[in-house]
C-alpha cells in the first residue's frame, strides 16, 4: 500500500510502513494521483486536507465568453490560464469556476488593494465569510484570499488546505519568490488570470508547468463594442524642441559611438541586459549607459509633450482623463504646472483613495500617474487615456488601454500615445503595440 502525505510544502510518497519514501514537489500531487489511479497499485491519500465546501450560486450572471472560458478550463482538467482584457470580468469568470468546482479555494493576488477587492467581491457573490491572509489579516476559511507574499510564506503550513488555487495577475508567478507558491501547494486544480501573457517563451513555459497552458484567450478587439467600449488609438509624433533635439543627439551619439567602437549589437532585451551588466565593471560602458539614459530621459519627458498635453486637455475639457507616464519626475512636473492630481508609489494610501474617489464622483476630471495604476488598483472609469511615456511592454500598453474600456452606453474611448519624433522612443512605441 502506498501512502501520500503532505510534508512542509512537499509531497511524500511512502510505503505503508513508512520505511521507504520519495519526496516530490507538492505541485506534482495531481500527476502522482493520476498515475496511481491508472496503475493497479493500492494507495491511501492522506495528503490533501481541504475541507468540503458547499457554495451557493453567486448573484453574478456570466457573459457568454466567461462561460466559454469556464468550459474550456474544465475541458483542460480544471488547470490552465485564462487571458481576458482589463475590464472584461476575470473575477466573475473565476467565481463561476469556483461555483463549478465546489472545493476549498485560495485566491492569490499581488497587492493588498486587490486582496480587499477580491474579498469584497467574493463576499458579495457568495454571502460567505471569506478568509484573508496578508495586509494584517490572518483568517483561514474555505475560500481565502492571500497576497503572493503571504501565500509563499505559509506554504509549509497551509499548502495542503486547498483544492483550487487561483492566481490573479498570473504573469507575476514565474518570479522565484512567487513560484514557491505554485510548487508548494498541493491544489490539483489551478486557474491563472491575466490581461496579457506576453511572448517571453521562458515565462510561458514556466507558467505551463506551474498552472497549465493558456486555455482561453480573448483580445480587446474581440470584445470591443459589445462587452467593452469601442475605442481608438491615436499615436501622435511630437517633435522635440531644438534645444532638446540637440542634447538628445549629443547624448545618443556617445552611446552609439561606444557600441560601434566595441562592436556591440543590441538586438534583444538580453543583449541590453548584458550591456547594463558590463557597465557595472567597465567605466566607458557606464558612461555610455548614462548617456543613453540621458537621451531617453529627454525623449520620454520632453517639454513638447507637456505643451501638447495642455492643448489636448483644453480640447477635451469634460472628458474623464487618465494620463500615464514612465517616470515619477514627469508626473510631478506636470502635476505642478497643470495642477493635476497625481498618484505615484509615493502617494499615501489615504490620499490615493481620496483622489480616486473624487475622480469617480467627477470632482476631479483628470489624474496623472506613473506605472502605479497599471494594475492592482481599482481605477474608476475614464473615457480618455494619454500615454505620455511608457516602456516597450505590450502588457503595460494593454493594461493602460483597459483603463478606458469599461462599457458604458454611447461611450467612445480614445487612447492618445505621445511619442517624441525622431527618437528611440518610436521603437518603444512600435514594440508595445506589436502584441
Amino acid at each position, binding site marked *: 500500500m502506498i501512502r501520500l502525505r503532505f510534508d512542509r510544502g512537499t509531497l511524500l510518497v511512502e510505503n505503508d510502513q513508512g520505511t521507504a519514501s520519495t519526496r516530490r514537489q507538492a505541485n506534482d500531487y495531481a500527476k502522482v494521483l493520476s498515475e496511481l489511479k491508472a496503475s493497479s497499485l493500492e494507495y491511501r491519500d492522506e495528503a490533501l*486536507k481541504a*475541507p*468540503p465546501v458547499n457554495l451557493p450560486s453567486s448573484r453574478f450572471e456570466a457573459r457568454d465568453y466567461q462561460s466559454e472560458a469556464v468550459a474550456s478550463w474544465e475541458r483542460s482538467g480544471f488547470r490552465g490560464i485564462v487571458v481576458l482584457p482589463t475590464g472584461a470580468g476575470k473575477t466573475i469568470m473565476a467565481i463561476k469556476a469556483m461555483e463549478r468546482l465546489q472545493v*476549498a479555494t485560495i485566491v492569490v493576488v499581488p497587492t493588498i488593494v486587490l486582496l480587499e477587492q477580491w474579498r469584497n467581491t467574493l463576499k458579495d457573490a457568495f454571502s460567505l465569510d471569506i478568509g484573508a491572509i496578508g495586509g494584517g489579516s490572518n483568517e*483561514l*476559511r*474555505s475560500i481565502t484570499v492571500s497576497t503572493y507574499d503571504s501565500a509563499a*510564506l505559509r506554504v509549509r503550513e497551509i499548502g495542503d*488546505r486547498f483544492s483550487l488555487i487561483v492566481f490573479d495577475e498570473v504573469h507575476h508567478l514565474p518570479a*522565484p519568490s512567487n513560484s514557491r507558491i505554485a510548487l508548494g501547494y498541493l491544489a490539483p486544480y489551478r486557474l491563472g488570470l491575466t490581461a496579457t501573457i506576453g511572448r517571453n517563451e521562458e515565462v510561458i513555459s514556466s507558467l505551463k508547468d506551474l498552472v497549465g497552458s493558456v486555455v482561453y484567450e480573448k483580445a480587446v478587439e474581440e470584445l470591443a463594442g459589445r462587452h467593452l467600449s469601442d475605442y481608438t488609438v491615436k499615436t501622435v509624433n511630437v517633435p522635440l524642441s531644438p534645444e532638446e533635439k540637440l542634447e538628445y543627439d549629443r547624448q545618443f551619439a556617445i552611446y552609439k559611438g561606444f557600441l560601434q567602437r566595441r562592436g556591440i549589437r543590441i538586438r534583444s532585451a538580453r543583449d541590453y541586459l548584458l550591456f547594463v551588466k558590463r557597465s*557595472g565593471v567597465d*567605466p566607458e560602458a*557606464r558612461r555610455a549607459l548614462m548617456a543613453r539614459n540621458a537621451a531617453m530621459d529627454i525623449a520620454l519627458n520632453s517639454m513638447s509633450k507637456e505643451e501638447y498635453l*495642455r492643448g489636448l*486637455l*483644453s480640447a477635451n*475639457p469634460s472628458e474623464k482623463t487618465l494620463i500615464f507616464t514612465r517616470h515619477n519626475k514627469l508626473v*510631478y512636473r506636470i*502635476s*505642478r*504646472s*497643470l*495642477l*493635476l*492630481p497625481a498618484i505615484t508609489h*509615493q502617494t499615501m494610501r489615504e*490620499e490615493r483613495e*481620496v483622489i480616486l474617489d473624487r475622480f469617480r464622483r467627477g*470632482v*476631479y*476630471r*483628470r489624474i496623472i500617474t506613473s506605472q502605479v495604476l497599471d494594475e492592482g488598483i481599482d481605477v474608476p472609469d475614464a473615457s480618455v487615456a494619454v500615454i505620455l511615456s511608457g516602456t516597450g511592454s505590450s502588457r503595460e500598453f494593454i493594461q493602460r488601454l483597459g483603463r478606458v474600456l469599461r462599457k458604458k452606453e454611447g461611450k467612445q474611448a480614445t487612447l492618445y500615445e505621445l511619442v517624441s519624433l525622431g527618437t528611440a522612443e518610436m521603437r518603444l512605441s512600435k514594440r508595445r503595440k506589436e502584441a
Partner: protein
Amino acid sequence: MIFPPELIRVRRTKTALTPIFADDEKVSLAKTLIAVYKENINRKRAKLNEALAECEELGYDFKLVRGLSAVLDSHSIFGARSFLPPVKVRTLLFEEATRRPSITEMDRSEIIAKVAEGLGVASSDLEESLYADLLDEQHLIDFRELAPDELLQLYNFALASVVLAYSVHISINYSGKNERLEKAASALGESDIRVGSIGLTLKPSKQVGIRGGKVEALLARLLESKEWRLRADVAYPPRHRETRPLELNRNSHGGVLRADKFEEETIIEIKSPVRKSSYGDLIIIDDVANRLGLTDRELIRRVEAEKRKYVRLPGVLVTPEKLEQLRSGLEELKESDLASYKTYLKGQACKNPIPVLEALGYFVEVDPETGRTKVKRLRRRASS
C-alpha cells in the same frame, strides 16, 4: 545600517567569495562625500542627489560611491519643510483647477494667488508647500559628521553584513563567553545553533530579505570579542546555487570593520526607560527578551531582581494570582474556537495569546472538516 544588495561588491572565484572592502586609497573619496553632505545641509535632497551623481563620475566604482552615500544617509536627518500641510494645499489647488476647462500659465498663477489669499499665505510659500512631502523635496536638516576612515570602516561593515545575509551556514570562533552573540545568532531564524567549546555554528533560516539587521547585530557582537574568526558558506549571487566560502578574522579584518556605535547607543537610550519599568503580571519570555535585546537568561535574572514572585511555565513567567485568574477564565470558556480564546486573553492584556495558551497546557488544531481553528486541552494543569 545596511545597504541594498545591488550595491554589493565582491570577487567570486571558484574557491572563495571576497567582499571588495574600501581600502585607504578611498580616503579621498570619503572626504569628498562627507564634504558634499556638509555643503548640502539645509538644501533639498534632490540637490544632494545631483551632487552625489556628479561624484559617480570621479572614476570610482559607482557602487562604492552609492554604498558610502548610503552610510552617510544613515548619519543624516531629512525632513519636510513646508508652511502648510502639503495634502491640504494639493486638495485646494486641484479643486480650484478642476473648475476651469484648461490651465494656461496665466490661469495657474491666478489659481495659486487665489488659494494663497484664502489661506493667508504668500503664493511662493504655497508653491513651496505643494509637494514638500516628496522624498526629493525633503531637506537635509542635520548631518552627524564622521571621519573619513570611520566612513570607510562603516561601509566595510555594512558590505560584510549584506553579503553574510546570503549565508547558508556560518561558523564562528570567539574568545570568552558571549551570551549576546549567541542571542544575536538565534535571531537569524530557526537556526541550528551548536555552541561548542570553541564557538558556534548556525544555519540561518529567516528569509534573506529580513536577515540583514540581524547579521549586523551578530557581526557587531563578534567584533567585541578579543579574538574571533568567522567562516560562512555564501550563496551569492542568489542565482548561483553553489556556495562559496567567505572568511573574516580579527587579524585581517578587525581594523577594517566597524559597527556603528551611534545606532547602538540610540537603541539603548530608547530602551532604557522600558528596562526600568515593571514587567507586568504576565511575561512572554521570548517577546520581551527580543524587545529589550536580552538573552532569555538575562531577562529572567532581571525579573528575579525585581523581587516579585513569578511562576515559571515553558516560555512564560506569570504571577501566581494572574495564573489562577487565567486558568479559571480559560476553563469557563464555552466555545472551543481560537477566536474566543484570543479575545479572552487579549482582554487580560496578553498581546500574544498562542505561547500563553501553550504554556497553560492548551494546543491549537485546525479541523480538516470545517477548516476552523479549535483549541484543545492537552493536560489538566500545567506543571508550575
